[in-house]
């Protein structure tokens, strides 16, 4: 079995982990965003509360939760391993810094954008995940059954703890830059390069790097400014 560990700990194997976990996390973003849009359904949050209840109780989701945490863990762990190796590959830095205009600043600073997204993620988990499971959340009755009022929690955090909103917006902005480089980069790492498809992949990357953060940003902005 040593060929598997050889393959996965080689430089290209580490990049493989990075790209597969990255693409998996992108798929999570789609699921998360589409579910969250239930916040905008005009039913006083009933659909969103039922969705939150399902997401926190259904067995399949709890299993996927573990897979998701593992995905984040492996993405972050591999990033640290690669960053340390890459830093060791150049022990002496250049005195003069020349930059090529064809190389974007964010492509060279994925570690920085990723770290800021991680800080945002931890705040986000405390704001909602932690409180949903550990705080006394007001209850709401839907079709004769009692549910935790997640809708109320979301609305009150973005309205009353408004200082989190700039952190959310900054986190989302950097997530956009992270995706802009990361999405297309993941395909190149997988060796999926093709004259016809690579430009399309690149365009999809650009598109989701704008649309995903924008979609998420509507939520704090709506509850902060319009509700």
């Amino acid at each position, binding site marked *: 079995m040593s*060929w598997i560990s*050889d*393959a996965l700990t*080689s*430089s*290209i*194997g*580490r*990049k*493989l982990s990075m790209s597969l976990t990255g693409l998996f996390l992108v798929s999570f973003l789609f699921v998360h965003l589409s579910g969250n849009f239930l916040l905008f359904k005009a039913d006083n949050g009933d659909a969103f509360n039922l969705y939150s209840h399902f997401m926190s109780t259904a067995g399949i989701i709890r299993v996927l939760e573990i897979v998701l945490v593992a995905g984040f863990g492996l993405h972050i762990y591999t990033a640290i391993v*690669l960053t340390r*190796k*890459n830093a*060791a*590959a*150049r*022990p*002496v*830095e*250049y*005195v*003069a*810094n*020349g*930059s*090529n205009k*064809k*190389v*974007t600043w964010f*492509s*060279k600073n*994925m570690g920085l954008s990723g770290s800021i997204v991680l800080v945002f993620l931890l705040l986000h988990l405390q704001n909602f995940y932690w409180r949903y499971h550990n705080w006394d959340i007001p209850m709401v009755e839907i079709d004769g059954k009692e549910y935790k009022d997640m809708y109320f929690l979301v609305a009150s955090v973005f309205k009353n703890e408004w200082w989190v909103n700039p952190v959310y917006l900054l986190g989302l902005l950097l997530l956009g830059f992270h995706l802009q*480089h990361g999405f*297309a*980069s993941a395909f*190149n*790492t*997988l*060796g*999926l*390069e093709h004259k016809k498809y690579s430009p399309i992949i690149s365009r999809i990357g650009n598109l989701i790097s704008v649309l995903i953060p924008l979609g998420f940003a509507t939520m704090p902005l709506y509850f902060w400014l319009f509700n």
Partner: protein
Amino acid sequence: MKSMNLTLKIWRQANAQAKGEMKTYSLSGINDHMSFLEMLDVLNEDLVKKGEEPVAFDHDCREGICGACSLVINGRPHGPLQTTTCQLHMRSFKDGDTIYIEPWRAKAFPVMKDLIVDRSAFDRIQQAGGYVSVNTGSAPDANEIPIGKQIADEAFNSATCIGCGACVAACKNASAMLFVGAKLSQYAMLPQGQVERKRRAEAMVAQMDKEGFGACTNTGACSAECPKEISMANIAMMNREFLTAKFTGEA
């Protein structure tokens, strides 16, 4: 012809063990038609006349085909143009400029003296698998090899890599993946390269890792600085070759 006065800041290091430092030199009366290396020749003649040690730098063909010349000029490998240092001319600079000249920086390319680095890591990667063991005979006639024109062109483009190491010097991770990608791809696309295809991919990548080069983060800096314009597609092909070899090879 214009005459230029320049301030040069050059990395000086007596030998591999010595601690180096940037030293400042003033140079006057430089002809703007001179190549960058000729400008350094003028500096060295001055230094020799003064009884000082001339600046050591790599150079050979001086016509842009051998890959011997190096130098990171103002933070960019081979300077501001996407070419080799020997093909860079002083008209790319202005009178009164300060120019920083440094060696390639990578753990796998240790400085031997001044601006000369040891690039034998590239040779060892080539020795690990960058060859074909079959007898290929003399140069074949046109269209004799059963491959399409497009494949032939792409294999040729990969083969134009001169192994100068600018990709490593430009990469923020000092990664050699553009070089290894080019050297793998040129064989992977041709019939002669098929026999050793999987073994080659595994062996060259293993040697690359052993030499201490970093890993690619797809910034594209290597390709943007490559004097032979080797494309990032070569890195994708290397990834594909390596992963296929690892997961489908029977050895």
